[in-house]
């Protein structure tokens, strides 16, 4: 499964091409799940699909460049046994992690999840569960 890391930039760092440099130096592909910049700095949530050591290396690099890095250790689970495919969760999911396939089966692509947790309480049969570890 892809690992997710949250980058926190200070205002001074926002201008620097840090992300591009790390991509170049590690040769990894990052999936940007969301990014937000304000006057006070910025936040980027990345999803990285790569062997653990390489992800660790990327984290090191970000830290060296003055970016605060936090790994998001959460997991979301859709229990297909309980799910009734009602779709109540679909329009609440901002990331497209919850989607419907051709025959209207509701599915979860955890790699896209940003752990907003909007879907969990909306499920009428408690088929969605979020765990932290």
């Amino acid at each position, binding site marked *: 499964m892809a690992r997710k890391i949250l980058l926190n930039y200070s205002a001074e760092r926002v201008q620097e091409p840090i992300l591009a440099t790390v991509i170049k130096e590690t040769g990894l592909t990052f999936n940007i799940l969301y990014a937000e910049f304000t006057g006070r700095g910025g936040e980027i949530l990345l999803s990285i699909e790569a062997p653990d050591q390489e992800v660790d290396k990327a984290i090191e690099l970000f830290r060296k460049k003055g970016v605060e890095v936090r790994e998001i250790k959460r997991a979301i689970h859709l229990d297909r046994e309980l799910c*009734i*495919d*009602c*779709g*109540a*969760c*679909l*329009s*609440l999911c901002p990331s497209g992690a919850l989607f*419907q396939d051709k*025959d*209207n*089966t509701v599915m979860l692509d955890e790699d896209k999840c940003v752990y907003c947790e*909007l879907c969990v*309480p*909306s499920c*009428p*049969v*408690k088929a969605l569960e979020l765990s932290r570890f």
Partner: protein
Amino acid sequence: MVNLGKTVVNKSVDEINEKIRRGEAVVVTAEEMVEIVREKGPIGAAKEVDVVTTGTFGAMCSSGAWLNFGHSDPPIKMQRVWINDVEAYTGVAAVDAYIGATQLSETKGMEYGGGHVIEDLVRGKEVEVRATAYGTDCYPRTEIEIRVTKDDLNQAVLCNPRNAYQKYTAATNSRSETIYTYMGTLLPRFGNVTYSGAGELSPLNKDPNYETIGIGTRIFLGGAQGYIFWEGTQHNPTKALGTIMTVGNLKKMDARYLRGATIPKYGTSLFVGLGIPIPIINERVAKTAGAGDDEIRTNILDYGVPRRDRPVIREVTYAELKSGKVRIGDRDVPVSPLSSLKRAREIANVLRKWILEKSFFLTEPVERLPTDEVFKPMKQAVAVPFVRDIMTKEVVTARPGDSIASAAKIFAEKGFDHLPIVNDEGKLVGIVTSWDIAVAVATKKKKLFEIMTSRVITAKEDEPVDLVARKLERHGISGLPVVGPSGELKGIITTGDLSKLLRR
């Protein structure tokens, strides 16, 4: 059956049943029928197809079950009864009770309710029954506690006063806050749309003239065979909002098609699986049974306006709703179905299988359902007043750049607690309370914008006051500024205004 005019193709239900018996009946699902009618036209389809099966699987709050517990020794005339801490209605004979889907557990609240009790019974789980009574000469016992499964009950009958809405309106929310409704969680500023009903699979949509569906019609109910025994409550066929009352043996049902549910911050309900076979007796029925999602329309209503007649945002087809995105203004808004299309389709297929296996035969209605009924609103003795009627219109306001000291003076002189802060255009940008001022005096802050609350909870002029009372209570505050459509300040409503109303 009914005389709605001459038709070219004419088949009776008996003839169709005979074909089923001989294994010659052509049975298709409603989705397949849409294609067939499109290809062959209603007459061609009516000649070819004998039965169209439909299905829906959605939360149907107006559902419940009659249970009979048998007599204890010494006997008890149950006056109040709880099943797994969910109260059931027992204002009937000694040991009969009705467990309703939306009744909440007295210990678990919205986590568990009547719908869950029904699911647990269907699953064969043991439930705890607790009853109290006043005791009579013939029923001396005043208390009892037993554990039973459905097998211990004499009868367990699913009996739903209103099921299978022909179609239903879709919902969205114009307000600036998330709201929790029976139409699910509605995100702020038209953030999503929810809808219910299976569109072209939905049973009553397929025979909107009630030519073949009526009292006595045998149906798929909760995984077993059940019946329609009356029109549903609020049956409103003239507006294409017909409903049915249904009944069936709970003991034979399957939890796959009967699931307890919790609608967030709204309450509990029961997902009911229901399917009706439509005998294709003529081309008129073939045509309605073949209506596609692109022909079935409903309105998207603004649930942000808490009134009985909610404003229509726009009309929409089920085809657009099922696409997962609906256009509102210049945006594509994500859509959630609240009933399961997948399981609706599964029900239509199961029903087809039963018919092909000759374990399910069609029925001719004993009596027709009314087609001219209208749904009356509640007769209310006193109309609920609106914010407009009781709000204070002359409001003292301040600007964000005004000093805290000047505001303190206003509070002291006028003796009120809320000071709305407006910008040059008269739009509300914040609020300051006397409490904020009291706290600010101890700090170095000087201007109102430093201490004002800018995420203000507001009311609208056409909101009923009881809703305002709920907002005040929920947020633990004592007043709400009233704003117009573009945020301009119109007045203020406080707990004081509300209590004046009570004294009136």
